[in-house]
């Protein structure tokens, strides 16, 4: 049984290496748990319905499973982030193509399809960066949570994330205002460092 440490959220590269083994159910579960919300959010914000977004999640995971052995940590396929983004984008485009086929007896003209897919691609690109940053932040917070004192995490949560006034945080947690400022600074610095490390690991 794993302890509640960084090992609960594996490093990207070690996880990607383990994904090459289809029978490694735990690693595949880790992958799904880590990325499904990101994929789903990007799909939704690209204009898909919930059902379509769920299909994108499934199809993306299947694509990753099929092609992970081809993925290399060199510049041929780029970073994992870019590779995953492309897969998601193509799966979103697939859903939009299905829509154009469903909406009429005859498929839409190529120009119209191209316009739809082009717009969808722009939307996907636009939301991708936002969702990716949110994903990095959330993952970083989860990792840092297990490395700081619990009170300090709660201070950071209330003061930095929920934006409570410092006096309210101090009173709620029974600490002084300077402690609130200090905890916010320390935890925030650790989270920033974690995000930089993850971004570097993706490249």
């Amino acid at each position: 049984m794993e302890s509640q440490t960084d090992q609960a959220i594996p490093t990207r590269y070690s996880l990607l290496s383990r994904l090459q083994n289809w029978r490694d159910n735990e690693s595949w579960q880790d992958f799904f748990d880590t990325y499904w919300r990101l994929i789903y959010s990007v799909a939704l914000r690209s204009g898909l319905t919930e059902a379509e977004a769920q299909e994108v999640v499934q199809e993306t995971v299947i694509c990753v499973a099929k092609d992970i052995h081809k993925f290399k940590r060199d510049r041929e396929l780029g970073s994992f982030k870019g590779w995953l983004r492309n897969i998601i984008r193509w799966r979103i485009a697939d859903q939009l193509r299905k829509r154009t086929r469903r909406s009429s007896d005859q498929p839409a003209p190529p120009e119209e399809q191209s316009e739809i897919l082009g717009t969808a691609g722009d939307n996907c690109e636009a939301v991708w960066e936002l969702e990716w940053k949110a994903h990095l932040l959330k993952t970083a917070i989860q990792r840092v949570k297990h490395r700081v004192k619990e009170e300090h995490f709660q201070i950071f949560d209330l003061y930095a994330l929920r934006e409570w006034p410092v006096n309210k945080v101090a009173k709620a947690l029974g600490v002084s205002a300077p402690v609130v400022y200090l905890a916010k600074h320390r935890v925030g610095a650790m989270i920033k460092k974690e995000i930089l490390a993850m971004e570097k690991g993706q490249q």
Partner: protein
Amino acid sequence: MSESQDSFGPETAPPFPATPPSIPEHQIMRRIGSGGSGEVWLARHTFGAYRAVKIVPLRAAGRHQISQNEFSGILNFEPVSRLHDGLVDILQAGGGEEQGYFYYVMELADDARSGQPFMAETYWPRTLAHDIRARGRLPIGECIRLGAAIASALGFLHRQNLIHRDIKPSNIIFVNGFPKLADIGLVTEISGERGHAGTVGFIPPEGSGTAQADLYSLGKVLYEMSTGNRAENYPALPADLGTTRDDLELMQFNRIILKACRTNPRSRYDSADELMTALLSFQFNHRASRWSSGGWPWAWAIGAFGALIGAGFIIFLVWRLVWLLQRSE
């Protein structure tokens, strides 16, 4: 009954025989739970009382050691189970290697459908996990009451040199409305050996196998009860935390949880009794502070009335003294 409702279902059922063996003096009615080592059945005693019966096969593939461990746990636990109200009563046990299974009969948990007459066909055991799922975070007063009851049971268990190793909301049942520690499949003697038995989210960083680890798990139960969050989210506070009186109480209660769940075992409460004392002190101090802060208006009325009576008595004494002095002149 102890197994979590979440573990029930053919897709998760272990490869045990579909038909349970016969249990002396009991009619087996229907399956009501399953776990890693065995299945729990609703049964009816010859004299009419309903019971929960756990049947553990000793020869299930890949589970022989688990089953043997549980068998040992039952031998340890059964003699003391009826000595404390906070432990589920083991009423009968039997079976063995020859039969290929062992069983134990337990008192039945209350029906989760509160207020309904008992119906064997639809019965489902009430656990703390069920209550949290149904109601969200529980009032702090209720958390204190439940926490103190379980801490008392845990303290008793530890004094018998036993540890539970799997404390979590789905292993706390209610019998006649009273909480009891159940699922004693991992109960063992305190040996100091660290292990990994238990449930993710409730196992401390140093591993299970000690009394301190049980306290950590109980701390996580307090966390789930009071925040409605899953144990894995600790120490995150509820998303809807605001400024109501309950939330102020939660933040004070939070300090007990933080101490119970310290990463360093030496920084936690020294014993289950100390945790219980902390909970009861919190309850007492909290009531006192509500009294003094005007949280109970009728207290002020009584206080004012008392002050009036006191003032009247003093005035009477002064008048009487003056009268006596005048008379003496």
